[in-house]
């Protein structure tokens, strides 16, 4: 037995995670000999088929143009790069004079950069730049004339609003930057770029308002992103665990949005947004619990209606999490809590079903989740068919077959609809719902209450970037509560200068914004 643990420990130790290492050859500097440079590029690029190289004489000097197939705008390449270079005639051209012409006398692309290493060369190549290498010059020039295909700006799919903007983020991060910049035309809004992923070299942008963000908060975000040790970053979700303080918590302190207007509203309150190239979803930190119940439409509607909608969201959250568990607990342990008329109906329906109420609830919820998942992943027309089949199976056939009682169908339907009212909390709510059903079926209201307390403690222990996730409810601030349970009018909200670092319980040392 001891031997088994010893071997397991060694296996565990040996298979422990090691951060990916970068190829040292990538930091090697370019040489002056063009042929040598091309040999090294071919070797490092492993002769991949997508690398296009084209030798050309520029003013009688050898040069090479390199780009990745399909990532360059052909028309721009022909008009801005190929034509000027091939028709260039410098008197007594030398490598030095040609480089001077490139640097000071020409505009081959709006985004034109000089680089020195093979690592930089590959980063530019793979970002859709055209790279120009000259014989006798130990530097390269990257020309930004990208022309790859991407999805156009379209309507948000997960954060649909009635009166808000109809634009959502897309995959190329540069487009997303313009969507944000168009909304806040202030020099205090800053985009700061980082690169993460030792192989993917993914561009990540921090977006914040220098006069709103706390310098300590910003530094902490940078510190955490610097700890990302992965070779490939394909989605913003890869970075989320590094930004979350307690990864074992059910609730996250990192928010997600696909709406540029929501992002702008968040950074206005001193938060920091993180955009990842290739992902149409931005991360927002720190993200507090009450923010799950806010949406942009709240601020477009009249305050009384926005307040009503907000209460409805809170109610839906509790219904979607607790209702099935409470129902199971009441039927199993506390039938006396039902009003008499309802008790008779529940008893009548339960006597004809073969399964215990807890199993019935679990079964129906698992079936519902399977159908939801299938509907989500399948092509849209088939997804609709799955929805119809699901409605028939759960709503009618299961009751007619005597597998489940009619009140349970009502409970499931209400729960399912409620869970979509606050979509950002869908993940924790789904898991908690199943947990509450289990606990309610085995321990009754006692178990439900204890589990609810555990969930409360778990939520209260979330402290994203030193700010309690439950602030300003607890620790309490009446001033900050004007946009939590109620939505005050714009005459009040517009004048307020509340930053996330100013909320009660915040441990951010610098309370006012002012990062430069």
């Amino acid at each position, binding site marked *: 037995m001891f031997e088994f643990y010893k071997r397991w420990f060694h296996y565990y130790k040996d298979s422990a995670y090691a951060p990916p290492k970068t190829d040292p050859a990538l930091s090697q500097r370019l040489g002056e000999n063009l042929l040598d440079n091309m040999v090294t590029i071919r070797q490092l690029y492993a002769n991949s088929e997508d690398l296009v190289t084209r030798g050309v004489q520029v003013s009688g000097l050898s040069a090479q143009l390199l780009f990745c197939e399909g990532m360059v705008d052909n028309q721009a390449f022909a008009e801005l790069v190929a034509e000027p270079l091939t028709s260039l005639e410098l008197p007594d051209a030398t490598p030095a004079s040609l480089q001077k012409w490139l640097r000071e006398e020409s505009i081959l692309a709006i985004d034109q950069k000089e680089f020195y290493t093979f690592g930089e060369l590959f980063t530019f190549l793979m970002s859709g730049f055209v790279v120009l290498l000259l014989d006798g010059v130990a530097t390269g020039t990257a020309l930004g004339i990208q022309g790859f295909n991407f999805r156009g700006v379209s309507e948000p799919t997960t954060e649909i609003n009635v009166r808000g903007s109809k634009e959502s983020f897309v995959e190329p991060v540069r487009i997303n930057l313009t969507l944000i910049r168009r909304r806040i035309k202030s020099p205090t809004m800053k985009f700061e770029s980082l690169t993460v992923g030792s192989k993917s070299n993914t561009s990540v942008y921090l977006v914040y308002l220098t006069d709103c963000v706390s310098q300590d908060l910003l530094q902490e975000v940078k510190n955490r992103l610097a700890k990302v040790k992965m070779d490939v970053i394909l989605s913003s979700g890869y970075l989320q665990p590094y930004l979350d303080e307690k990864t074992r918590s059910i609730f996250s302190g990192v928010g997600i949005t696909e709406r540029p207007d929501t992002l702008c509203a968040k950074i206005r309150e001193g938060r920091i947004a993180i955009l990842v190239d290739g992902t149409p979803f931005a991360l927002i930190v720190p993200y507090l619990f009450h923010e799950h119940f806010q949406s942009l439409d709240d601020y477009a509607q009249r305050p009384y209606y926005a307040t009503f909608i907000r209460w409805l969201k809170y109610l839906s959250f509790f219904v979607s999490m607790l209702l099935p568990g409470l129902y199971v607990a009441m039927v199993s342990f506390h039938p006396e809590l039902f009003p008499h008329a309802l008790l008779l109906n529940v008893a009548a329906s339960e006597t004809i079903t073969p399964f215990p109420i807890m199993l019935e609830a679990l079964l129906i919820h698992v079936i519902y989740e399977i159908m939801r998942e299938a509907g989500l992943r399948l092509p849209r027309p088939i997804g609709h068919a799955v929805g119809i089949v699901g409605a028939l199976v759960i709503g009618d056939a299961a009751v007619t077959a005597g597998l489940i009682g009619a009140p349970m169908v009502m409970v499931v339907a209400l729960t399912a609809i409620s869970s979509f009212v606050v979509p950002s909390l869908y993940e924790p709510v789904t898991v908690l719902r199943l947990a509450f059903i289990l606990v309610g079926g085995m321990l009754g209201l006692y178990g439900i209450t204890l589990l609810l307390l555990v969930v409360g*403690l778990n939520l209260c222990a979330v402290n994203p970037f030193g700010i309690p996730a439950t602030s300003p409810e607890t620790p309490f601030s009446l001033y900050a509560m004007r946009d939590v349970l109620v939505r005050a009018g714009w005459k009040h909200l517009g004048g307020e200068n509340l930053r996330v670092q100013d909320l009660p319980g915040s441990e951010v040392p610098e309370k006012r914004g002012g990062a430069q």
Partner: protein
Amino acid sequence: MNRTVYVDTRQLLMVLFLSRIFTALTFTPQGDERIAGSTVMLGQLLSCLLQLLLLVPAWLLYRDHPRASVLDCANTLNRPLGGILAVLYGAFFLVNAVYTAASFDFFLTTAIYPNSSSWLPLILLVGVAWYGAHVGIEPLSRVAGFLFVGVLLSGVFIALALIPRYDLSNWVSPLYDGVEPVWRAAWGSLTRSTELAAVLLLVPMVKGNLRSGVLWWQGITLVAFEAIGLGTLLALGEYAGTRLFPVYTLSTIAEFSIFQRMDALHMAVWVFLAALKTGLYLFLAAFCLRDILPQGQKKFALPFCAVLLLVGSIWLARQGGLLVGLTSPFGGVVPLLLLVAVCPLLLWLWERMRGRREVHHGA
């Protein structure tokens, strides 16, 4: 960013209030058959004044060291003395955690689930309390903020639902049997005010005006006790004296529209409060134990205390006599007096004398 553990005075107030109110849901004025309900209500007022009086030595100590707990002060004066006090305070909190869990189990297996085993609810309760103590005083106090509102709303709801049952003829003069029962009621209430000791240890973790926080806590607790007492007295009258859990009985007879009984609401409140109080005391017991353990072994303090809590509460739940004995004036007041008033007073005097001696030597 450096993590600093701190609790707002308002949050402290809520934790202490909820912890204190837990006993009120069991031991209402009519709980003791020998004392009339209105007499106990007067006793509560007297108890409140006595509690403030007990805190005077602690206040003197706090005035000199606003950011130090009683253990910090003792450690500064004499390290072995600090160790002894840590053991005493730790044992006190652990016993109270055990008592809370055992009395909770008594209620659960008597009133709610008469046929259930006594150890399963205790294991679950101790598990939740352990988790609460593990996440620390900040989440505990934050969750207390939510619970405070919940308890307040459910209390008001039940009180409103009981309006048709209030009968003013149940009221009797508090001095009907003389002054002696008032004193007994006051002592009884004082016995259960174990949160006074918690205040002395939580001092370094509290941000804000602690003195006003404690005064508000005492005031709100008094109002709540009087309200519960009055409600029980007017709705149940003499009948309450025959019930083990009069407030629970109140909730079962409360009716509002289609809600024909509200004991589920009462039970939920009771479970929340029991877990919170046990978690708080477990946290404090582990906090004391950590103070005396060597550096590498501090992490074992909480699991050790939790295991003791579980074993102790399972044992105590089966010892009905001892459960009552712990709430007797002698069993409860003596340790409380020692830890809340005597220890801080001695520490304060010692510090004064040492200060004078140093001044004398300096001169």
